[in-house]
């Protein structure tokens, strides 16, 4: 059943189709070629079919149609040459680092006398040598990732399949992982790296872009970005009006996409139209327009037909949140201990009405703990806080009633229909019957849920799930919104649509607190605080943090991710010096 072998490939698949039940197939006639010594990117939002394709390549699933060839044979005949790291790494949490490696080495038939040499090399490669006797369940996300990779490498494979290795890992570990993959390709291994992060696509040699099971782009990433060359501009010089400026710019017909980047607004201009000047954009004379470096994401957006327009119907119909002297959200020395373990220490910040504030940090740094304390879900060990003027200690319930909460994952009832979810949340927020009916009708209209009211929320496409989750969170028109990683894994058009609504709400005076380790989301914030090992290590506007990091690491024009890494490395350096002294 070996298919045609593409020249210079270690793995290839042709015309792969796979359907799970009725409806759209998970994969619709998709082909891929993995070249030796190259990183092949399998890129697409959650639910695009990436995992299904990887499982078919690894021989764990059979395709309905199409052929897979790994080194000239079927995947099942080439198991020894395939290294595979599933999304959840496949580690045994009750086994130590060494025991996990030993298990995989024995299962893959690595001769016993070679164990020490191979493990030594892998410890050095992954820097896990110090932790070899630690239970893998007790490792951080980044270290689990590396151990998962090491387990896939015990017998040097010729094809390495990595299913979303960058998910849930902080930027530092992600950068290390890329460096490791770089070393592997130098040895001639063909690597498949699947990801929902479009910035990772730029690091790949070849990219296969999937959307809803269909292949929308194939080729080197530069081929896609080249199409938008010269059409991306960076507009600055309107300080506090940037959200309004973005809304207005997006409503123009010559602008097909736009995002906020700290103080600046980044715009993608449609094909065949001149770049508008400041006057055309209706901005002041201090406005500066300069060309920006195009990104893979710009190309993807253009391929998908451009992003949404600027005016949010949700914001238009939302009530105006009255101005107030009190800060909308306040944390005063919030601290949480679990036994000896400090999950969050002395967290302080205030967010005035109508601002977006971001909690940034690697997994396990204490973002969620802080978030839960402010939601009134965890009682702080020390310190206090308030939401919309309600003290958390004395009026946690009324504080909760004045906030809307949305997490991209888990916040809906998958077994209830869309209409039932809306009804439930209207009831949970205690809306009077007539107001609830009105609110539901408005949400259905704004988010275009009319055709899907009787569909179970669990079976909705990801984009609609996200719309529904936002609808449920804002139905009662709260003055404060809490967002927990609201858009990770969502396709960029949906992400733009989400932030368009949030931008609109903020202009109406809604205050937003967002936790994220996704740098794109950080750019939308007025101010962010970086939490690392339960401590706040830096607070300021995204531009200020970037400037601070730029000075620290002598990086020119650092991205938010560069800033994140530089600040954390600086903190680690100080920490080590402190210990040494």
């Amino acid at each position: 059943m070996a298919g045609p072998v593409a020249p210079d490939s270690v793995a290839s698949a042709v015309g792969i189709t796979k359907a799970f039940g009725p409806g759209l197939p998970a994969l619709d006639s998709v082909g891929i070629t993995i070249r030796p010594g190259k990183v092949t990117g399998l890129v697409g939002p959650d639910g695009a079919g990436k995992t299904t394709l990887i499982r078919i390549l690894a021989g764990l699933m059979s395709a309905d149609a199409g052929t897979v060839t790994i080194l000239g044979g079927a995947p099942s005949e080439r198991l020894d040459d395939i290294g595979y790291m599933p999304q959840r790494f496949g580690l045994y949490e009750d086994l130590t680092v060494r025991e996990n490696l030993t298990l995989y080495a024995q299962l893959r038939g690595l001769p016993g006398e070679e164990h020490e040499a191979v493990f030594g090399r892998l410890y050095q490669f992954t820097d896990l040598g110090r932790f070899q006797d630690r239970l893998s369940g007790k490792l951080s996300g980044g270290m689990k990732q590396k151990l998962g990779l090491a387990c896939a490498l015990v017998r040097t494979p010729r094809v390495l399949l990595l299913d979303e290795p960058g998910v849930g890992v902080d930027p530092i570990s992600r950068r290390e992982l890329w460096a490791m993959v770089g070393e592997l390709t130098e040895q001639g291994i063909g690597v498949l790296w699947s990801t929902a992060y479009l910035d990772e696509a730029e690091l790949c040699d070849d990219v296969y872009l999937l959307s809803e099971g269909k292949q929308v782009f194939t080729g080197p990433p530069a081929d896609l970005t080249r199409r938008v060359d010269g059409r991306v501009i960076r507009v600055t010089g309107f300080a506090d009006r940037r959200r309004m400026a973005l809304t207005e710019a997006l409503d123009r017909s010559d602008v097909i996409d736009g995002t906020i980047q700290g103080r600046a607004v980044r715009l993608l201009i449609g094909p065949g139209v001149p770049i508008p000047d400041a006057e055309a954009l209706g901005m002041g004379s201090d406005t500066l327009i300069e060309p920006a470096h195009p990104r893979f994401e710009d190309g993807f957006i253009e391929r998908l037909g451009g992003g949404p327009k600027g005016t949010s119907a949700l914001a238009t119909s939302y009530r105006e949140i009255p101005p107030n002297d009190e800060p909308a959200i306040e944390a005063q020395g919030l601290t949480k201990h679990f036994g000896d373990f400090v999950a969050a220490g002395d967290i302080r910040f205030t967010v005035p009405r109508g601002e977006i504030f971001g909690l940034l940090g690697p997994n396990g740094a204490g973002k969620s703990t802080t978030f839960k304390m402010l939601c009134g879900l965890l009682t702080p060990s020390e310190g206090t806080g308030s939401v919309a003027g309600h003290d958390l200690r004395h009026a946690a319930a009324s504080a909760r009633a004045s906030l809307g909460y949305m997490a991209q994952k888990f916040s809906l009832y998958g077994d209830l229909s869309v209409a039932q979810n809306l009804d439930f949340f209207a009831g949970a927020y205690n809306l009077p019957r007539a107001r609830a009916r009105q609110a539901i009708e408005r949400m259905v209209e704004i988010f275009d849920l009319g055709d899907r009211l009787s569909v179970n929320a669990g079976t909705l496409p990801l984009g609609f799930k996200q719309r529904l989750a936002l609808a449920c969170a804002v139905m009662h028109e709260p003055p404060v919104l809490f967002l927990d990683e609201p858009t990770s894994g969502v396709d960029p058009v949906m992400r733009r649509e989400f932030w368009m609504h949030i931008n609109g709400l903020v202009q109406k005076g809604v205050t937003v607190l967002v936790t994220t380790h996704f740098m794109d989301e950080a750019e939308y914030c007025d101010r962010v605080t970086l939490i690392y090992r339960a401590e706040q290590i830096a607070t300021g506007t995204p531009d200020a943090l970037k400037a601070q990091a730029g000075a620290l690491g002598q990086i020119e024009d650092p991205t938010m991710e560069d800033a994140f890494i530089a600040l954390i490395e600086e903190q680690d350096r100080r920490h080590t010096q402190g210990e040494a002294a």
Partner: protein
Amino acid sequence: MKLPRVRFSGRRLLALVVKEFWQIVRDPSTFLIAFVLPMILLFLFGFAISLDSYGTRVGLVVQDSSAPAMRLAQAYQHSPYFEVTTSRSVEPLRKGMIDGDLRGIIVIPADFGDGVARMQPPPIQIITDGSQPNTAQFVAAHAEGVRSQWATIENAERGVSISAPVDVSARFWFNPELNSRYFLVPGSIANVMTMIGTLLTAMVVAREWERGTMEAMMATPISMGEFIASKLLPYFVLAQFSMTMCALASVFVFGVPFRGSVLTLFAISTAFLMPALGLGLFISAATKNQFVASQLALITAFLPTIMLSGFVFEIQSMPVPIQLLTHVVPARYLIPALETVFLAGDQWGLILPNIGMMLLFGAIFFFLAFRFTKRSLD
């Protein structure tokens, strides 16, 4: 797409078994199910739940003053099973019955002495509280027991054997005191083995699916045979270990006699572990989800083992359809085999058919488990 054909490898199996061993040792929930829960069950059955009741309060109405009637009344008064309130008529005791103070009334009729003299003793009347059927049955049975014991002595003293009353002489072999602990303690071994063999096995396989380790395993060259064997061996050993602990506790803590041989006991438990482990594997292969697996294991294995195996409720006294249903419960064959090896000894004639039935069910479940375990994520 062709599924891989891989040769069985002892080294890979060993690696998997070692992994399983560390997981058992380090996972507190496994330890709890395998060691702590059996002991709790055993002590619960051994001490707390007893089907015997001593000193049940009953009324005794003696309407006759002849010597045999007095002797029978005395027999009731001395019986350890009863605490007797005596009266000349039923009327004063009626209130006690209604209030629930008395569990029954035994009436020795007025012509009792005459009847005995004529060698035709009239029946005694036993009134019981039908709203509590178990106690009612117990009172009736023991009241009759005491009477028949009295009758035997009475006849022996008079040197009369031919005229013995028709329904006498129940002799309880092997458990002369009818001590229910003797049944319950070996019976709890069945529970323990079901718990480890079915519940725990179903859950540990489902856990591999849930945590995504199954996916990673399948990407290595292991065969499903190796995988299944790596689950069977450790839990087989674990179940035998817990069984041994329970057996030792039965004999040395609860004083249950052990009249058979250790080898026979292991033969029986091995035979039972086949259907238990097979069902566990089948459940986990069919569900791949720990919650559903544990519910299924409880409903298909644990509850039938308690209720339909004859361990707590006697099968002969069940309605016929339920009696028929008990034939598909593997524990139904384990309980009599265990009772035989503990209380009677190595009666192979009784034990072998039961072992045969258990092995038959084992074969069926294993067949199903292998049919449903696929080396694929489809």
